[in-house]
């Protein structure tokens, strides 16, 4: 009797969980293991702005109760980092010195907040928003009705900004090339969207007009806790500074695996990498687009979930191509507010 197939999913976000669920339903006899560096089970990161409304209990954010994983026989391994992959031997090497064999590997490790190289050294002066812990730390550092400076202003940041305005904070967006990321906004349309930000209550500072961001420093005694300095010598002050420059695929562990990588894992429309046993889904992969004649990323909760499902389908015998499921255009509502379809989730 053959041993059951072992499907390993790296990542426990939207794509990873959808993949695990699909693998379980399509291959009931298999072993399904999901590995994540997070200490938390799958939680709704789109809901993280609620932390600023005072919701501090992470249990209120999780999608599935603990029993879900037990009932579905999904072995969830948290606080576990994959350090490398031997694709020939189908083995994962874990940071705590354990090896794990897989029959199929589905990489859904997502992405981490991107930080422009020139600002990396100022990271200690900024508050991230990439995890539950980051959100708590930022909320703790923000006084009531305080002033938040959003650097960049991607759609994740602007989503948070909406909440911050709603709870009475002052919010300044330092706009630059990553503003509205991942939406591609043409130069012609950009002023309209920036005006919309102002209309929504954001204060807008144009980094380009000030010679770009030069540094983020601690505030002087008696002033706000943080200063953002520009190359023209000007500066703005706020209580916390949060970077929102988009995200970069989290795939360090795949380097040296033999799988082709550009910025993300390169996959065919069926989400298979250059190794037959390895698939990818979500923010970590670039999918070949016949229309664009290039590998490209697809973002948004709906897209990512669909990718997780498709990858699992194809891992278990199907061979279907990726079809985007989500509108990717930034919108302006009738009352002049911006709206990103990536803010929609269910």
């Amino acid at each position, binding site marked *: 009797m053959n041993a059951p197939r072992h499907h390993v999913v790296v990542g426990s976000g939207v794509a990873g969980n959808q993949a695990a669920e699909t693998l379980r339903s399509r291959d009931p006899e298999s072993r399904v293991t999901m590995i994540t560096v997070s*200490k*938390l*089970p799958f939680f709704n990161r789109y809901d993280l702005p609620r932390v600023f409304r005072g919701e501090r209990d*992470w*249990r209120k954010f999780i999608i599935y*109760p*603990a*029993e*879900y*994983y*037990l009932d579905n026989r999904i*072995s*969830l*391994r*948290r*606080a*576990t980092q994959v350090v490398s992959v031997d694709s020939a031997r189908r083995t994962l090497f*874990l*940071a*705590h*010195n*354990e*090896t*794990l*064999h897989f029959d199929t590997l589905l990489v859904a490790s997502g992405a981490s907040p991107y930080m422009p190289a020139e600002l990396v050294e100022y990271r200690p002066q900024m508050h991230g928003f990439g995890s*539950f*812990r980051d959100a*708590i730390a930022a909320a703790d550092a923000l006084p009531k009705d305080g002033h938040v400076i959003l650097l960049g202003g991607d759609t994740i940041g602007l989503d948070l900004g909406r909440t911050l305005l709603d709870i009475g904070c002052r919010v300044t967006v330092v706009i630059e090339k990553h503003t509205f990321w991942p939406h591609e906004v043409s130069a012609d349309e950009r002023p309209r969207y920036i005006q919309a930000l102002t209309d929504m209550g954001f204060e807008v500072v144009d980094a380009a007009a000030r010679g770009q961001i030069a540094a983020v420093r601690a505030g002087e005694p008696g002033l706000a806790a943080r200063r953002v300095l520009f190359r023209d010598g000007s500066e703005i002050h706020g209580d916390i500074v949060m970077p929102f420059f988009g995200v970069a695929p989290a795939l360090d562990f795949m380097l040296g695996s033999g799988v082709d990588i550009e910025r993300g894992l390169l996959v065919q429309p069926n989400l298979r990498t250059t190794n037959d046993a390895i698939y990818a889904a979500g923010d970590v992969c670039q999918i070949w687009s016949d229309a664009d004649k290039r590998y490209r990323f697809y973002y948004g909760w709906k897209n990512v979930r669909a990718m997780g499902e498709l990858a699992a389908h194809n891992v278990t015998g199907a061979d279907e191509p990726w079809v985007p499921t989500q509108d990717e255009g930034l919108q302006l509502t009738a009352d002049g507010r911006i709206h990103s379809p990536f803010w929609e989730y269910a």
Partner: protein
Amino acid sequence: MSKTDIQIAICGSAGEGTIAAGDILRSALAGAGYRIIAFDAYPAEIRGFGKCVARLRVTTEQVYSLKEKSDVLVCLNDEHGIPHIGEVRDYGAVIYEAKSIVPLAEGAHVSAHIRPGQVPYPAHIRELSERATGGPRSRNMVALGYLAGLFGITREPFYKIIEAKFKKKAGVAEQNRKAFDAGYDEGKATFQLDDVTFAPPEHKSEAVMLNGNAAVARGCMDAGIDNFFGYPITPATTIMEKLAVEMPKAGKRLVQTEDEIAAIATTIGAGYTGARAATATSGPGLALMSEMLGLGIMAEVPCVVFVSQRGGPATGIPTKTEQSDLNIAIYGGHGDAPRIVIAPTNVDGCYRCAGKAFEMAERYQTPVIVLLDLYISNRYETVMLPGKPPFAPNCDKPLAEQDLGPGYRRFALTDDGVSPRALPGMAGGMHVVTGLEHNELGRVNEQADMHETMSKKRHEKLKAALNHPDFWPCRRFGDEGQVQVGILAWGSTFGEALEAMYRAQKEGIRCAAMKVVMLSPFPTEAVAAFIDSCDAVLVPELNYQGQFANLVQSRLGRQVHRYDRVTGAPMVVEDIVEQVRRLIPSASQRAA
């Protein structure tokens, strides 16, 4: 005022400092003002084999037992930690080594087994120990520091205990402190995701933390013990170890004899001279002592025997707990050999029973067995000890001058069955003492009526022990009047029984519990009244035969429901509650 009720389990291999870590943790938390109940499980092997688990329950309110689920598990070792992950409740914390130095096979790391509801905390235990102290030996202290830092417990109580523990080895204390600090800093920097909260105690209590055996030793000292004779045996040995430190300071004598037979013989000899004398052993030792105990009973010599039960028969499971020596304690030996047997139900009771045992032995001129078990012997609790020893220094029946003289009757028949006792060397007190049946003078007499008379004397005099001053032979807790279910328990099991009673009451079950401390002579009337006030009675105990249930049924002729466990582990509260729930239909039937 928020309450703290946290159970922590530390798990590792023998030799990894698991029990030492538990000791420091409970001492530090007791020093910080928390109430503690703690119990260590360890293997029979000395080092390098087997699993050690130190468990402690930290509270701000009085509790009576350990919980079945822990809130925090600290794994010093993957192999031994993995089987215990299931004991951590949902949203509880699992602290473990972040990185193994040896390659691990699939599933051999703790992280592979942490359940989705539990919170994982990988800590760099080995690495921090090596950085702080140059070696891995202080991993236990790193883990303790991590735990304290994670939960925001101040460092000072730990420093105090580390310094006290290693006061003669300043260098070792410093190394341990460094390791603790290294772990503390990492723990403090770790984002806490579990819901474990240490609320500060309302006020710092004057309680001291003792385990059952230490409390026995303290009781012996406060009762004025003169001589102790013993032979080491798990789990009684630490009574002798404690006394070996304390008795010489008070000018008293302790002798390690060549075996248990010598120990009981010398104890009886010392008791005969008027000394307050005791020995301590476990079931196998009691078996060896049984013949000499008969001599003590026949010669009406006061002495105290502490018996800490362990899993048997034979060598059995010597480092696991059991309550299976009740029969030998009450009935062991040949002939009609009545003796007093008392069994404390908690650490405070160990202190009180130890002291009272000397009073009773003197007052009723008989050996007294204090029946402990491994769980209570090794269980730590914070207890309030009285400022002044509450034990009478001399309980001998007064000896009148006219009693002495050529016709002195050492075994005089009296109304209460107790004869005025002359000690060796006392003028006019010369008498014969023998293991043979004897008359009032002590001279051999095998006549039928004499044997009947003296047998009656030896049995009947003990009944007064049921009314011994300041001693509760048994005590009822919980709902008054008629109840649906009564839990009748003895020894260490009573703590779990009491918690089970409170839990059952919360479920709306009318419930009461009775602890029986005096097992011989048996408090028949009070126990009968308790049973009659219950629609059903449950007797949980840690032996296969239901020895206490048998005792109750034989003495009272009442039916009880048995719940007998022999797992080597203490009784589980929830298991008792489940038995109580099951009794509700039969209780209703009986009530109807």
